[in-house]
């Protein structure tokens, strides 16, 4: 195959080593992996030809686990050890999760993220998600018979910092190189925007299994700009199932006592809901421990029992439009995403609110994964000619706690990322040398109503009179929407020490422990794996440096060029060594040697972008 491929010079860094990059839709009820093959994005099937992987993991008493369809079959029979909808618990504590009483799990509460007790001990939602991601990774590697270069993983637009971080941690556990986290609606827009080449303002209505997102996007000249996002990270098809269960239980008066009863009712509700998308009446049937439920449900009854949920999605849509300062008339199209949009009452409600029939010509289950794979293909450098620029916004405001438990907003929501915002703080006592900061995320005015992200202590402030110190705290949000905080004292120039105590997520030591335990590594020699990864990194760096030199080598002084050449030569030799730590160290040497070069290249790029364009200056 490689022999037949003809590439223009400079099209790919190395035409014979096309990088395998995938898009992964890590969904609440199911997950998919897609890749661009021969210029076409497609979902990758498993050995049985199924593209959907149910996001269900069952932990078995004798060790080992079942993932996907086999686990889904055990939802009713082994509910406590069969974890579905783990995505709802990502980066959440017990207090955050709604409808807990309807779930069959034995939860363990922790300050940061809850855990779930199974026969194999306590499992973090991050570990459950990592099992799902690793399964998709193996599927892709089997399909291409090659290692993966990287993945773009999608998250709901509404995900806060804790939830995004948890998703990245899960990918790390699964041994995936995350090229980017992108919002699910944005991925859907990529799938539709490129396929249909349509420009204008679009609403992406994404009703999945566990989350609802509404995004207002503007597509122009190949640029996807998120104008506003909104939604509810705890509203989805699962809630329709629960509402139907509640309604049936109320109608029949059946007693629900066992955990297995809850799960059996949920399975029956889902089957009933799916059938009602195609038919008018269907029997709700569930065998419980003490009784059998058999009850005819009509479309209109299901619609009435869930009308409050559909109405919540429309309210969120109205709010997102107001945030974007747009009216319904400005929206040129509505894209439907997520299996739950197949429900006729949802299609009808969306059509009525927006005054137009929604777009649904792509499979609503696959759209997100397809879009993510297009972005992954771009980010891995396979499509140099492509001009896909993805500009995203921060979904929720970031702020700090001030006196009286009030929130002072520092980074307002819907700000384009990456972004950095600084805020000055001062001391309130003479000789004060430390300052405590509490970072929160959310739109409410009271700290108690927002999500706690982290507590920082700034130490080493030089003793001064009260109010004299000027401590500048900088919040940096990267392109994935993840937050970093740094601080320094302006008057003395002292860089203040920051002790980060995340209120959520996992520590590095916890991740390391999970990596040891996880099956994605248990079957392989850890050291061999580290070496392979170090070699891939080194290769990547050498290729990138060489193409940078080819393009902009003229910027360098002879001495600078010699330093880079020398570091490259050393690294090329180091690749064949068996010492991962040495290889990493040589990568760092080369990276440091190219730091100034990278800055000069950027200056040239910016100058080129502006040249001949100073319209106002004429």
């Amino acid at each position, binding site marked *: 195959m490689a022999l037949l491929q003809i590439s223009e010079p400079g099209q790919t860094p190395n035409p014979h080593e096309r990088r395998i990059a995938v898009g992964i839709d890590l969904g609440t009820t199911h997950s998919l992996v897609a890749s661009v093959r021969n210029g076409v994005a497609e979902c990758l099937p498993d050995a049985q030809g199924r593209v959907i992987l149910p996001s269900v993991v069952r932990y078995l008493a004798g060790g080992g686990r079942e993932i996907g369809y086999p686990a889904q079959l055990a939802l009713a029979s082994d509910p406590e050890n069969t974890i579905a909808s783990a995505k709802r618990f990502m980066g959440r504590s017990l207090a955050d999760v709604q409808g807990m009483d309807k779930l069959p799990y034995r939860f363990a509460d922790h300050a940061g993220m809850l855990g779930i007790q199974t026969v194999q001990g306590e499992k973090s939602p991050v570990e459950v998600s990592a099992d799902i991601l690793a399964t998709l990774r193996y599927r892709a590697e089997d399909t291409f018979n090659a290692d993966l270069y990287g993945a773009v993983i999608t998250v709901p637009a509404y995900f806060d910092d804790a939830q995004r971080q948890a998703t990245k941690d899960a990918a790390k556990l699964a041994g995936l190189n995350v090229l980017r986290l992108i919002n699910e609606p944005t991925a859907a827009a990529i799938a539709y925007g490129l396929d249909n080449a349509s420009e204008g303002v679009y609403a992406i209505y994404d009703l999945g299994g566990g989350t609802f997102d509404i995004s207002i996007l503007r597509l122009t000249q190949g640029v996807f700009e998120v104008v506003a996002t909104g939604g509810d990270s705890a509203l989805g098809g699962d809630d329709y199932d629960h509402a139907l269960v509640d309604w049936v239980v109320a109608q029949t008066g059946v007693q629900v006592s066992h955990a297995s009863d809850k799960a059996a009712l949920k399975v029956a509700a889902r089957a009933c809901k799916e059938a009602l998308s195609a038919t008018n009446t269907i029997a709700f049937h569930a065998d419980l421990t003490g009784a059998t439920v058999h009850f005819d449900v009509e479309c209109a009854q299901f619609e009435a029992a869930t009308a409050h949920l559909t109405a919540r999605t429309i309210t969120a849509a109205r709010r997102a439009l107001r945030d974007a300062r747009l009216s319904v008339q400005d929206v040129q199209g509505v894209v439907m995403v997520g299996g739950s949009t197949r429900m006729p009452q949802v299609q009808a409600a969306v059509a009525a609110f927006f005054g137009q029939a929604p777009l649904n010509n792509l499979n609503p289950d696959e759209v997100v994964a397809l879009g993510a794979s297009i972005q992954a293909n771009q980010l891995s450098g396979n499509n140099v000619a492509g001009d896909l620029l993805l500009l995203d916004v921060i979904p929720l405001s970031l702020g700090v706690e001030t006196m009286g438990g009030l929130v002072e907003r520092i980074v307002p929501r819907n700000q384009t990322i990456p972004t950095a915002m600084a805020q000055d703080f001062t001391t309130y006592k003479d000789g004060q040398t430390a300052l405590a900061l509490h970072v929160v995320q959310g739109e409410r005015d009271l700290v108690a109503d927002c999500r706690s992200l982290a507590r920082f202590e700034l130490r080493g402030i030089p003793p001064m009179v009260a109010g004299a110190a000027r401590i500048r705290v900088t919040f940096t949000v990267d392109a994935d929407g993840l937050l970093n905080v740094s601080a320094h004292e302006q008057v003395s120039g002292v860089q203040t020490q920051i002790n980060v105590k995340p209120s959520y997520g996992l520590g590095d030591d916890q991740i390391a422990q999970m990596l040891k335990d996880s099956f994605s590594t248990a079957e392989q020699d850890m050291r061999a794996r580290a070496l392979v990864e170090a070699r891939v990194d080194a290769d990547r760096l050498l290729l*990138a440096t060489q193409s*940078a030199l080819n393009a902009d080598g003229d910027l360098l002084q002879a001495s600078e060029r010699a330093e880079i050449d020398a570091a490259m030569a050393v690294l090329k030799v180091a690749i064949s060594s068996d010492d991962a730590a040495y290889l990493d160290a040589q990568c760092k040497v080369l990276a440091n040697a190219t730091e100034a070069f990278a800055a000069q290249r950027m200056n040239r790029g910016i100058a080129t972008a502006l040249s001949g*364009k100073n319209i106002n200056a004429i």
Partner: protein
Amino acid sequence: MNLQSNDFELFGLTKQFAQDRAALDARWKDLQREAHPDKFAAQGAAAQRVAMQWSVRINEAYQRLKDPLKRAAYLCELGGAPINAHSNTAMPPAFLMQQMEWRESVEDAHGVHALEQLRKQVDAVQTDLMQQCAALLDGAHDYSGAVHPVRALLFIEKFTLDLDHAFEKFD
């Protein structure tokens, strides 16, 4: 051109209040196409860091340039007359009286119609102040003179946010 250039230099625009939003947007996208970290995803940590710095700087400038009020405040600052919105909140009594009346109208509103009437009134005052800003900044180059309308507009912007919240009550 470097990270310390002012927003107008960075975007290659004349340092003035009047700006064409479409041209500004196009310029922003041109610059982000050049500098966004995604473009350097396969190019190692050094390139990523530089890209992040530039991309952040471009977004910062864009946020300031695209919003007429932020742009006016920035021009005052560049012209040696900083707004100091946090430390200096003294306003003329007549202006404060009007603010209080508006806030009372919001509390007394019984429906969307009353709020819409109020919004029209506020929009008119806002437009008038914005025109004053334009004349002072671009015509007279009177940066300290522009500080007053800019600060009045900051008050009004805060009020319009509260007005938006009031609409939500009637959703």
